[in-house]
């Protein structure tokens, strides 16, 4: 075991996979100089691009700023013997490659009747909450949940990041990895040995009996903090669940928890409409409506673009306080706005 940051764990998983399998290559903008900190050798952000020294220019390549061609070439390479990792840096840049992601990566195996497999990983980082403005702040994973054929991971801790990414690289299907930049510096003890975390298995981060709280990506640590505060302040026992992978999505674990608690609060950094929490809420409503003792509460970014000013941006995302308030509300300790008005 050693202490690793979230971003260090991503680098460690890539390094592990590069050592284990010659077919793994990394392509992306500025990966050779380790600009984004995941192609160095260290456990922290590396000082120099030592993946190049270790694996050579054939296996780690700077690309032109051509997201569509990079993604397409990675798909074609995956279909013919390589296992590429594409580092797309900011998640906002995925849109440049939308056709390749949606029409090629996701559809080829299906359209061609199973003839191809597309073992490729598309990594991108969600730089939200960092005053980067509307062109660099996207959290677009829900759009891709709507595309059958892609798998999606959204780790919320260093140990999950390492195990999920390793599983993604070993997977024979296209996987999109959405990494939360606000969590980059988060540290924890991580197993140094090679391990993989199977997809579609949620992680119960905290057991509880009164309220089920689901946190996605960067909202998960906030959910944990809120749960802790609610236990201390009100004696509310929260069960905190991290789905970890959004496709496949382990709704069974969540439904089972709701059957026990009867209350559900969901938090995620993406926009509200058709988000991951909307999908989970709908599934719980379909499968466990009878167990619910309070309406489901969702905390998301509103359907609003992301403004630049620090004075404007922070209010848009779920926070520990907002999650805590929602927990109090479903637990009956706080009235809803409607109740306050009619009272």
């Amino acid at each position, binding site marked *: 075991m050693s202490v690793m940051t979230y971003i260090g764990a991503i680098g460690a998983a890539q390094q592990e996979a590069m050592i284990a399998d010659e077919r793994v290559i990394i392509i992306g903008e500025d990966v050779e100089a380790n600009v984004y900190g995941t192609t160095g050798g260290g456990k922290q952000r590396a000082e120099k691009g030592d993946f190049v020294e270790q694996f050579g220019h054939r296996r780690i390549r700077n690309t032109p700023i*051509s997201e569509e061609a990079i993604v397409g070439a990675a798909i*074609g390479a995956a279909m*013919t*013997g390589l296992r590429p990792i594409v580092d797309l840096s900011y998640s906002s840049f995925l849109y440049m490659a939308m056709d390749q992601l949606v029409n090629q990566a996701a559809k080829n*195996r299906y359209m061609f009747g199973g003839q191809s497999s597309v073992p490729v990983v598309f990594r991108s980082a969600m730089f939200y909450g960092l005053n980067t403005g509307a062109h660099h702040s996207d959290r677009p994973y829900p759009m891709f949940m709507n595309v059958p054929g892609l798998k999606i991971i959204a780790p919320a801790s260093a140990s999950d990041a390492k195990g999920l990414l390793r599983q993604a690289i070993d997977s024979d299907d296209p996987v999109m990895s959405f990494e939360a930049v606000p969590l980059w510096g988060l540290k924890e003890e991580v197993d140094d040995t090679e391990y993989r975390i199977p997809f579609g298995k949620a992680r119960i981060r905290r057991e509880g009996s009164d309220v089920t709280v689901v946190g996605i990506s960067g909202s998960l640590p906030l959910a944990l903090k809120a749960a802790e505060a609610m236990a201390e302040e009100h004696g509310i026992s929260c069960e905190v669940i991290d789905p970890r992978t959004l496709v496949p999505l382990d709704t069974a674990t969540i439904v089972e928890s709701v059957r026990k608690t009867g209350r559900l609060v969901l938090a995620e950094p993406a926009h509200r409409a058709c988000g991951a929490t909307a999908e989970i809420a709908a599934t719980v409503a379909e499968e466990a409506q009878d167990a619910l003792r309070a309406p489901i509460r969702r905390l998301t970014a509103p359907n609003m673009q992301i403004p630049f000013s620090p004075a404007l941006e922070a209010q848009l995302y779920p926070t520990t306080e907002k999650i805590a308030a929602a927990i109090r509300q479903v637990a009956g300790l706080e009235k809803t706005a409607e109740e306050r008005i009619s009272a």
Partner: protein
Amino acid sequence: MLRKADLQNNTLLEMQRRMIRIRLFDERASKMVKRGYIPGTVHTSIGQEAQVVGACMALRKGDHITGNHRSHGHPIGMGSPLGPLMAELVGKATGVCRGKGGSLHLADYAHGSLGESGITGSSIPIAVGAGLSAQTLGEDRVAMCFFGDGAANQGVLYESMNLASAWKLPVIFLCENNHYALSTPAHTVTGGRIVDRAAGFGMPGVRVENGQDVLDVHEAVAEAAARGRRGDGPTLVEVMTYRFREHSEGLRINVDYRDTNERETWLARDPIQMHRAWLIAEGVATEAELDALADEIAQEVEDCVTFTMESPDPEPKVAFEDLYTDPYDMEAVQ
């Protein structure tokens, strides 16, 4: 005519065989669209057989191609058997893609066909990726993408050409310039010549002026393939050709967007007739032998239709297979 004599007689005959296969297969597919056996539509390569076969036969076993909506010629050019292709057009269980691709999305991995694409230009970078894997793994193979003059105006082509050139990948960009993108004359939407765009990316650009001559096409592509294998990078080959039929079968466009004289001039340059005449003139085959070859292929097409019509429909559950390499959780979609 030294270069032409370089090819073995059986190769010269095989070219004719594959061109006739495309012609008769597509003629038959057209009829089957009209009679309602093939749902939707198909885009034939009739008139462009030399461009397709000359290019495909310049490749070797192990090489890869990607293609577009004008899709049947490419796998046939690579040597795919006709039965599973026709069955795919009809949507049968025995289709090469299990009935899930259809005409627009044929693929035959056993014959190097990585897949046709219904999205114009979208399969171009896939071939670049096949070139990338060849280079990275040190495998002696090249990849070729077929795309039209219309697709030549998609931005992805230029990202792909630049990437292939910067990395010196063994890729052939094969532009099928049939002078029209659906009803739009290429010259009205294209700045300059497509072939000249190669220079901007530091790669050779070759234009095959007589794209109806299978040997001319073959020569240009063979050279491009050799360049790729030598590690000298990609080539853009623009082949000037013409589609003899409408953009797609059953499509009726009320505006006569193609000049009658132009059409007649091109129809007179039938690639199959031209190669036939050449084979006879060069003493490679006799008229009788070539007639027998055509009969043989007519029977082959007949057999592929019989195979298709006798094949069962796919089981409904097949719609839920092949999305991922692991079995799909049926409950998740219900």
